[in-house]
């Protein structure tokens, strides 16, 4: 299989056909922070933490590396000043859920009023249930600022209690949401 040569953070790396920038970086031990990325699932592009600067010819863009396909001879920078600024803003907006990352980026508080729930709407549970399990027992309800995760009301018909989504959930929110339904139904 042919490989695609590209530069990430000054290093020459070879991406495989069909790989994204993020995958190529990870395989070469270059760390790019992510929240909504999971290698079993299709690129989603929710969290925007994985944004990087890509220079192609004389044009530089900021793109989500989880979705951007590795292209020949592009120059990728994963941690520029601009990128750090974006990540800091995301940390502040999702405050306080990204506390580990906050330390890395020196963010100690958020300037925004937070009424944050444990759910970051990364959609891991929804996407896993749909893409891997082909069940669709969990879904997104509402749109815009009213978007939330919901479980199909008649859980018994859809959910097979595999609990896989529990382990995928970074905030533990789906556990809370499902626990009652789960315990009462699995008895």
């Amino acid at each position: 299989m042919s490989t695609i040569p590209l530069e990430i953070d000054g290093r020459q790396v070879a991406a495989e056909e069909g790989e994204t920038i993020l995958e190529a970086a990870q395989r070469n031990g270059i760390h790019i922070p992510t929240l909504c990325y999971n290698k079993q699932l299709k690129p989603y592009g929710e969290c925007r933490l994985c944004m990087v600067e890509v220079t192609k010819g004389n044009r530089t863009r900021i793109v989500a590396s989880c979705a951007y396909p590795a292209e020949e001879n592009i120059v990728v920078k994963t941690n520029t000043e601009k990128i750090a600024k974006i990540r800091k803003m995301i940390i502040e907006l999702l405050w306080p859920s990204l506390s580990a990352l906050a330390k890395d980026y020196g963010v100690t508080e958020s300037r925004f009023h937070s009424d944050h729930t444990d759910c970051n709407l990364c959609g891991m549970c929804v996407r896993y249930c749909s893409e891997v399990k082909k069940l669709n027992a969990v879904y997104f309800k509402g749109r815009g600022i009213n978007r939330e995760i919901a479980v199909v009301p008649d859980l018994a018909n859809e959910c097979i209690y595999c609990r896989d989504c529990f382990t995928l959930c970074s905030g533990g929110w789906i556990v809370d949401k499902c626990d009652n339904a789960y315990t009462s139904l699995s008895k």
Partner: protein
Amino acid sequence: MPKLNSYSDLRKLQEFINARRDPSRTCITVCSGTGCLAYRSQDIYGAFERELEKHELRHVVDLRKTGCYGFCERGPIVVILPEKICYLGTKEKDVPEIVEQTLVKKKLVERLLYKDPATGDRIAHMDDIPFYKHQHRTILASNALVDPKKIEDYIAIGGYSAAAKALFEMNPDSVVKEIRDANLRGRGGGGFPAGRKWDTTKNAPEEPKYVIVNADEGDPGAYMDRSLLEGNPHSVLEGLFLGAYAIGSHEGFIYVRQEYPLAVENTEIAIRQAHELGLLGENILGSGFDFDVTIHRGAGAFVSGESSALMTAIEGKVGEPRSKYIHTAVKGLWDKPTCLNNVETWANVPAIINRGAGWFRSIGTENSKGTKIFSLVGKVNNTGLVEVPMGITLRKIVFDIGGGILKGKKFKAVQTGGPSGGVIPESMLDIPVDFDELDKAGSMMGSGGMIVMDEETCMVDTARYYTDFLAHESCGKCVPCREGLRQMLRILNNITTGNGREGDIELLEELAEFMQVAALCALGKTAANPVMSTIRHFRSEYEAHIREKRCPAGVCKDLISYAIDKNSCIGCGTCAKNCPTNAIYEIRASAVSKDRVFAIDQENCIKCGSCYTVCPDKARAVIKTPVRSFAERV
């Protein structure tokens, strides 16, 4: 009508229809666009039928329902051809008089004619009315010539001849070349060159290819695309056909909002009729080319106007955008090459093929060619649909065509580009309207919404309104758009309720910049535009709200108060009768006087402004003040 099997069949049909139509024959056209229909223009049509019957005029006078005439403010509109006598604000009861006077006695019904507000003169001819005089109607003009439900009307004015010309006299490459040469740019908002988009889809390796009409118009106050689909659906269909032929697509979709029932109905009829005539389906006009169109009804999500979200919705999933690092022109609907253009873009295509790229390029500015349709609404005298050449100034649109600001108030700004656009202040009224100039002014062309604002509009409140709209209409998928809008809305709510803090403006700017770079789709990337442009042009209004807790325009309820000046009050009590919370009570004018005047109990006042509106002109005793708490009695 029999199926058409060749180019000459189409020409013969056109000749056949036109041979039976005498252009000098009187024709009464009744506007049947959504606006006029709401004013019962179908009853007017019925009344004309009866009156013509009564005067035994049916065999000498034609009667036609047409698409939108555009001057919606003054509907229902009746235009009598060929003289183009334009009657505005017509009612069913006016019909006998129109028939009696205009058709029988050849006299005008003066009171129904346009009255020049300055001179008081009446204007009979439609093209002399300022609203129409300054326009350049190439696309909308056909609306008035056809009954949208009759394909023969469209064929009579040369309809489908561009399609036939392409099939028999041009090859797909030359059709694309014509569109490229014309430099037709996308009318949906972005202004991307249509020819380049077509080329990309055409050259994409995969098959099948799709073409889509984006009729998911959702900007508040905009209804251009709606009127085009309602008024002349065949022109859009023919444009789509030409695109399909050029690109090599055999399947097209029209994504139209369910909330546009007439557009859906007329488009359905148009597709059916085109099928019956063999202008859609297999082996079109015997050329060997197949093409079919399906209508997809959208369920009213603003975000579905974004191309990738729209395609996801057609696929049967929730309409959410996806990353477009590989363009939808290459990987679109079902991951196949897909060419999507807006209604107005497609409607321009037949005219370009018929009249040539050179004709199209002769209109407009260097990089924005042709005309653009705007829906001119808000605090302007003549609201309606206007079609103007690119490069016309905003001042001309607002003052010459729009007739200036309502009630002689002062112009403040015009909002273009809908929720993704921005406001343009008075100092920039003379910039030419084209894609690039509007971008430079911090707004955008958008699909053509144009909302005029007067001095009584608060710009912070305007930004808050659009941000609120977007916060609820965003899909909510990515963090920058969802969380960014959530926080933006919170800050704007704080400012407009008097809880703004020093530093809020800077924080808004920082958020806006972040969203522009980091959001997933065009909705999110442009969602901060209303905030950015109002800060850019009206920063002092933000500062007044934050620092002085004052709303200069007197709009933000928490920052204004009403009071009654007891020296001016004539004691009529109209305000008290209209007060929804009974907050207005009687007092004695003074210790020595027995006269009664009124006062407002600030505790119970909800600041709805009813008293302010109803206070008689001779008194003008209710005062609105841009401060939070006002002395109870002046």
